[in-house]
């Protein structure tokens, strides 16, 4: 891999100085003249009809602006995919925390008193609170059958396979909801002006998603809605679709009050009311030969979408396509569905369906290993996809990937064999049992199938009067390094210094739509467009006779200055073009699902303490092939951050549901990993390039969260000899299983997996 001058080096984070000095301005740091605050009155029950709303007498209601569904100028729904989610409930509520009324007042403290003073009388309806209840259809709460979406993938001749199998291995695996827990809560400021229309400033990943939703809600044209992303304190998917809702709410209050309105959620509201990772249930039935080769299988993958569709169809899609893991399946049938329950709608969270189905696949591989009396490493070796073979969607692997080599590297870095033997011996004499476990996985980068063509992203690069260039994208920075990486790409492409490149704040009136900042697509796809637009800019300067075909950085800067001085400006746009050879069949759900995959093998070493029943992760190895490392510090940061969230997903982060509402909606009782919970992590990158990605890069943001949970639970089984098929795995869960195996009468209770 050729070493870049700027790409591939650790350039300073573009907005870093402001962040370490406290100068970075997040939405709650901003105040506008004449600004008031907004708050939301929400449903207290998971399902029912609204009978009566009473405004308590102790509040001076004339000081408040009150907004209900009837104040919505256009359509009362949040435009996304199915358009089934009301902006404000109108007579009926389908989940706890569903927004009903909006209040605005100049005094933030008076607002919370007022919210508490609104009493709502309901006629409760029977809620559906689990996947199983939804499947039973004793109540129909969505559509005709409670099903948002289904997929069916069929490959090869499955029916012949069962007779030929030497082993048929079954398993059922569960994952629970997970809260994104960005440290900056959801927040926006909205303003309305009769001429300019609606303006939104706020914490978000996708300004154009918010823009589209507001156009529909207000029935205003494109140029009368303006959305500006402010410095965003973490997102992880939690600010992909949700900001459209809080923006809509603030905008309605701003319109009715005639004043700018700031809405910032406190932590409890944010945790209880906004989206979380979809809970899942996966069932595997696999035909395996005595040599340990997968002959075929059936996989059923089900996710709980909550009360409205939001992004469930797409989460389901990704989870379905990843359900077979990085293995060769000669034949497979994958049936997938997203079902409705009366929980607050679930949504995007890093990984987006893949952590769920890959948890099941990797737990199941260890189960297959045990059935065949093969090691976890060996069973994977015998089934790894190789170049030239086809995936579950019949995509031929054209990348020069060598999964065995990744596995070998991981085994070596983690000292796996020696540790496994040592632990087996030492565990006999200790109540602190050690174990080591692995996970092998993949993550497709970019939107699935024809998704990138549908997004039709556009990127701009603009000459500046000081001779530098400015990158124009709607792709947002929220810690992962968008600003830095896209600037590196532009600088490298043009032979400029990193400092010559600036990047515009994503403002829908200033930048083209480069698509949402999701799906691990920014570096790979948007980055490639930035390079194209930069080259186009260069060509324009050459064509204008201001620059030679070969030029120095100083000549380029001079040409920019001259062109801008003479012509007022120069902007070059580049639009996405789907690479040749990417064919995807949306009906049969087969073909090239992604233009590139990241591949990884992770190994976790744990201690399971038989006195406290707690598990700690003591050591971790993360080996991945990512095409090209564009920035070594940022890339490592993505892996470490993803591993930390994966540890939380595996061991600590449990959403306690009661009556369809999150009970532990506080940081006190929803435990996210602290520095004390993070083991040393050895990160190793392989770089095999990617012809379709900027400078050979593939996506890297989500891959790291797919592996830790199964690696950890595999390690716990290694330590304790007990099989756990759900996450999060809390001490209570371990205690129950161990107590049950000691006393078979408890068996039934221990089977109830906690979601």
């Amino acid at each position: 891999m050729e070493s870049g001058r700027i790409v591939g080096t650790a350039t300073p984070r573009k907005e870093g100085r402001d962040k370490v000095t406290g100068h970075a301005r997040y939405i709650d740091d901003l105040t506008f003249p004449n600004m008031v605050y907004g708050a939301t009155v929400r449903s207290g029950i998971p399902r029912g009809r609204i009978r009566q709303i009473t405004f308590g007498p102790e509040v001076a209601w004339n000081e408040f602006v009150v907004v209900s569904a009837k104040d919505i100028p256009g359509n009362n729904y949040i435009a996304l995919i199915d358009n089934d989610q009301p902006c404000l409930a109108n007579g009926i509520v389908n989940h706890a925390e569903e927004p009903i009324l909006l209040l605005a007042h100049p005094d933030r403290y008076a607002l919370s008193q007022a919210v508490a003073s609104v009493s709502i009388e309901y006629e409760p309806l029977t809620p559906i609170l689990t996947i199983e209840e939804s499947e039973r259809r004793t109540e129909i709460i969505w559509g005709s059958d409670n099903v948002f979406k289904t997929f069916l993938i069929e490959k090869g001749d499955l029916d012949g396979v069962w007779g030929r199998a030497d082993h048929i291995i079954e398993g059922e695996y569960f994952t629970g909801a997970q809260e994104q827990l960005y440290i900056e809560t959801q927040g926006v400021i909205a303003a309305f002006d009769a001429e300019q229309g609606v303006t939104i400033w706020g914490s978000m990943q996708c300004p154009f998603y918010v823009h589209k939703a507001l156009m529909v809600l207000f029935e205003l044209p494109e140029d009368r809605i303006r959305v500006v992303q402010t410095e965003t304190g973490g997102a992880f998917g939690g600010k992909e679709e949700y900001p459209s809702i809080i923006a809509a709410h603030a905008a309605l209050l701003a319109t009715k009050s005639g004043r700018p309105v700031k809405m910032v959620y406190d932590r409890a509201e944010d945790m209880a009311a906004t989206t979380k990772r979809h809970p899942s249930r996966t069932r595997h039935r696999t035909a395996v030969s005595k040599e340990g080769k997968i002959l075929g299988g059936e996989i059923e993958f089900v996710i709980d979408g909550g009360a409205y569709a939001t992004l469930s169809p797409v989460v389901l899609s990704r989870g379905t396509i990843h359900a077979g893991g990085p293995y060769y399946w000669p034949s497979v049938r994958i049936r997938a569905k997203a079902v409705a329950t009366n929980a607050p709608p679930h949504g995007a969270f890093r990984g987006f369906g893949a952590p769920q189905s890959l948890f099941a696949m990797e737990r199941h591989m260890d189960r297959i290993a045990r059935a065949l009396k093969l090691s976890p490493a060996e069973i994977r070796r015998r089934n790894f996809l190789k170049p030239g073979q086809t995936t579950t969607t019949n995509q031929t692997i054209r990348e020069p990937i060598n999964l065995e080599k990744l596995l070998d590297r991981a085994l070596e870095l983690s000292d796996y064999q020696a540790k496994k033997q040592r632990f087996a011996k030492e565990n006999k004499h200790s109540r602190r049992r050690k174990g080591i476990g692995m996970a092998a996985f993949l993550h497709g980068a970019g939107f699935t199938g024809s998704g990138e063509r549908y997004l039709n992203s556009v990127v701009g690069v603009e000459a500046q009067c000081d001779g530098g260039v400015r990158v124009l994208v709607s792709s947002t920075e929220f810690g992962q390094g968008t600003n830095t990486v896209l600037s590196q790409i532009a600088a490298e492409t043009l032979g400029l210094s990193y400092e010559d490149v600036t990047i515009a704040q994503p403002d829908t009136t200033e930048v083209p739509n480069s698509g949402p900042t999701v799906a691990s697509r920014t570096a790979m796809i948007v980055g490639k467009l930035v390079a194209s637009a930069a080259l186009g800019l260069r060509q324009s300067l050459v064509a204008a006779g201001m620059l030679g075909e070969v030029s120095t950085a100083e000549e380029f800067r001079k040409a920019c200055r001259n062109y801008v001085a003479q012509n007022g400006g120069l902007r070059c746009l580049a639009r996405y073009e789907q690479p040749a050879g990417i064919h995807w069949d949306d009906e049969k759900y087969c073909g090239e699902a992604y233009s590139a995959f990241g591949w990884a093998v992770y190994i976790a070493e744990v201690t399971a303490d038989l006195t406290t029943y707690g598990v700690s992760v003591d050591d971790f190895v993360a080996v991945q092939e990512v095409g090209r490392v564009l920035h070594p510090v940022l890339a490592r940061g993505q892996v470490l951050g993803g591993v930390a969230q994966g540890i939380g997903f595996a061991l600590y982060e449990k959403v306690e549901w009661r009556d369809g509402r999150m009970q532990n909606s506080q940081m006190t009782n929803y435990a996210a990993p602290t520095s004390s919970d993070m083991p040393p992590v050895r990160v190793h990158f392989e770089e095999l390039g990617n012809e379709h990605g900027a400078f050979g890069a593939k996506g890297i943001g989500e891959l790291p969260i797919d592996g830790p949970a199964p690696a950890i639970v595999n390690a716990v089984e290694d330590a304790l000899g007990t099989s756990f098929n759900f996450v999060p795995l809390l001490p209570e869960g371990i205690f129950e299983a161990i107590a049950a195996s000691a006393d078979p009468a408890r068996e039934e209770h221990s089977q109830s997996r906690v979601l």
Partner: protein
Amino acid sequence: MNGEPRSVHAYPMQRLLDVLRQELELTGTKEGCGEGECGACAVLVDGALVVSCLIPVAQAKGANIVTIEGVTADAGLRALQEAFLKCGGTQCGICTPGMILASVHLLSKNPRPTTDEIREGLSGNLCRCTGYLQILEAVAQVARA
């Protein structure tokens, strides 16, 4: 306030965090949870590391308070901020002010902490982006120097 005497008009039970951010217009200190769990609001009050979301301003009367704005002004502590930038200790930045205050506090009490001592010293500050290790490395780098 960061070495300068300041006076404000505030209700005694108003949170110190709000007085800092609103009355004193020092928005560098952040709110992450409002319950003293995440440390994003961490400041130094008479040298003690406290979560300002749980301190009624009356309790801070007459105290020496240091916020991220004060840390930035002190030339000797800029090394910590440079290290955060170099090591990748800052991603989205929202936990960074509190994390830097906690690091300042740790290093003032223990100028040569071990990795475990750094880990423990920062365990009251949640970060969701970095997975902590690059933050620990930044502090270790400054401690070694």
